[in-house]
């Protein structure tokens, strides 16, 4: 379970209890009352902001959280590794021949390596080895590598490959858990990344077209024919969902996160089988900061309000249990119900679900 941000919640028990009460109404009243449970905070996005990067994007939320992502590709010499299913230590004539038999598109399938993508997340106020940036970058890398398509696309030939450096910079302090924002910015940057066109053939030293207009997009666009097996592939995007009671709320803000029962980060990519809908690439639970909040002291146990301080901690616990559903803040315990998880996943991946809307909204930025 990934840890929550180090900056811990500083809300009073009365506020937490109030927020919890609003979010557990049906339908939930969110902090921004104009928004429904599935609504995202509005954001502003642009791409190609960094001239010297292969692809870049900047997304700013309305509350001032802002992320900048740059994608830089470099040609790197591949480390020699034996091909599975053959003792071929040197590329002999035989192996080259078999490679030629294969379809040119399949040439790179399964040859990508995880190390070809390097990601760094920088968050102001955090060291590089602090848990928050480390976990964020590993969750983002994990979702990118899960499908295996991106790393295969970095294959040039047996001796060379592209190395992709993805640098993510959060320009503002992390007001809410920034995973979704960073993932969307990364998605947009990768979607608009371009690599120079390759001019050399086979295992020659790679030679590239120096005309940037001739460069090829990292995620090739679908031209005209949309056959089922030639679906346009897009990088995955992570959405955050949290549960309060039986309510599911997407894209929680900081205050809403502070009263969450459980938080899920769902990485999803567009579905291969159907033109609409999405598939789940990875799921992680995130430890909600609500677990660390101090419980509110009920009036009956508070000496300042005419109550009596319980004599022992066991006594205090029993009294607390009886007051569970009143206006006293009690930090949530336990995890997420299995039914809720499946409900969240369904809401994300269904046709016209959250994932599809996010991916198409990001796509619209690139087109528009």
């Amino acid at each position, binding site marked *: 379970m990934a840890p929550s941000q180090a900056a811990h919640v500083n809300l009073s028990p009365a506020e937490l209890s109030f927020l919890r009460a609003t979010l557990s*109404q049906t339908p939930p009243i969110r902090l921004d009352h104009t928004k429904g449970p599935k609504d995202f905070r509005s954001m*502003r996005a642009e791409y190609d902001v960094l001239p010297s990067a292969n692809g870049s994007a900047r997304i700013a939320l309305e509350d001032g959280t802002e992320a900048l992502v740059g994608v830089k590709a470099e040609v790197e010499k591949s480390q020699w590794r034996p091909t599975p299913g053959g003792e071929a230590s040197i590329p002999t004539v035989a192996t080259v021949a078999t490679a030629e038999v294969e379809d040119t598109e399949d040439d790179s399938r399964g040859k990508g390596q995880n190390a070809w993508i390097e990601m760094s997340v920088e968050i102001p106020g955090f060291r590089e080895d602090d848990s928050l940036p480390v976990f964020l970058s590993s969750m983002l890398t994990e979702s990118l590598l899960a499908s295996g398509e991106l790393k295969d696309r970095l294959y040039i030939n047996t001796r060379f490959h592209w190395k992709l450096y993805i640098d993510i910079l959060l320009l503002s302090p992390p007001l809410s858990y920034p995973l979704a924002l960073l993932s969307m910015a990364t998605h947009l940057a990768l979607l608009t990344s371009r690599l120079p066109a390759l001019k050399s053939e086979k295992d020659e030293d790679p030679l590239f077209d120096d005309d940037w207009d001739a460069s090829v997009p990292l995620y090739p666009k679908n031209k005209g024919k949309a056959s089922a097996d030639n679906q346009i592939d897009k990088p995955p995007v992570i959405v955050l969902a949290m549960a309060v009671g039986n309510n599911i709320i*997407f894209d929680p803000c900081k205050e809403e996160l502070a009263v969450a029962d459980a938080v899920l980060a769902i990485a999803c990519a567009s579905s291969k089988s159907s033109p609409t809908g999405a598939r789940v690439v990875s799921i992680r639970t995130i430890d909600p900061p609500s677990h660390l909040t*101090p419980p509110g002291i009920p009036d009956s146990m508070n000496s*300042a309000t005419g109550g009596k301080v319980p004599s022992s901690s066991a006594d205090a616990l029993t009294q607390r249990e009886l007051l569970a559903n009143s206006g006293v803040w009690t930090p949530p315990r336990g995890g997420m119900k299995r039914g809720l998880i499946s409900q969240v996943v369904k809401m994300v991946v269904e046709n016209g679900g959250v994932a599809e809307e996010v991916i198409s909204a990001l796509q619209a930025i690139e087109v528009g």
Partner: protein
Amino acid sequence: MAISILPPSLPAPRRHAPSDTSDHDMSDGEISGNEEFSHSTTTESIVTPGETITSDTQWMRGHGTYIPANSSTIISTVAGTLHKTNKLLSVQALRARYQPEIGDLVIGRIVSVQTKKWSVDIAAPMLASLPLSAINLPGGILRRRTAVDELNIRTFFSEGDLLVAEVQSLHQDNTASLHTRSLKYGKLRNGLFTSLTGAGGGILSRRGGVVRSRRQVFTLNTAAGEIDVVLGVNGYIWVSKHVETKGEKDAGITKLEETVSETLYSSQNEDLEPGVLKEITRVSTLIKGMVACGTRVDEDMIVRVYEGAIEMQAEEESLGGVEKGIGAKGIVEAVLARLALDG
């Protein structure tokens, strides 16, 4: 529409604060011929820290400016707009922290608990302090503070608690000392906290922000019941359910303390009906929208925007399809446009 992603936009045109116009009466054109100064003839131009405003010796430096040793150039020390009052040049910062003044009503959040006092965040450059001797203790105003009270300091306020207080005094380093020695002040509950940036009051009238001289605690009548709004001068805002204190009318001066002290330091919310929850959230969202639109935040404006928003929602439900933008800002913009039409 679950998600809206827009392309970046140019910054919205700045609204003039209503009382902004009296400052710059540039009657005699002394500044002609000074190239450096020519760009700032309009008040809308922004100067940045370190930028030379003028090297003309006839000007006096005011707030937000600086004259380096052995020179006569006036340099800006903050990022903001230039103001001229006769021969005085001052720069009003775009954003500034709250500067406490004696008598200000502020909302604060307890940051730490010390032996005999609390440190309170009131959005000022430095934390304010609230001594144990400056609060009402339950059980009578004239009770002595004992060692037991010091030990039980966390039963009154603990870390994270919100309180409304008054600035009692200022120390030499501009740290404020607060007190809650009134029944109006004390711990906050049954509501929602919002904060807005920009300092209220201050040397020059600022755009947005809470106005110091207006009424800061008022009750709003809504369909679901009464709602209290507390506007702290420091930009912290509390919107909560109005709770009738039953002792308010019949209790005499001596009994007043005892009747109120029951719930004075409670951190437990009352039973809040869904309607009240909704209205509290609505008021708080509208205040955020008003900040985003750059309007001033005071009683009059909040009441008008709230009533406009309620009216608009009613129309939307009966007619459908009322034109409004996205989110809180969109609603407030629509309401303001409508108010402007009405005159």
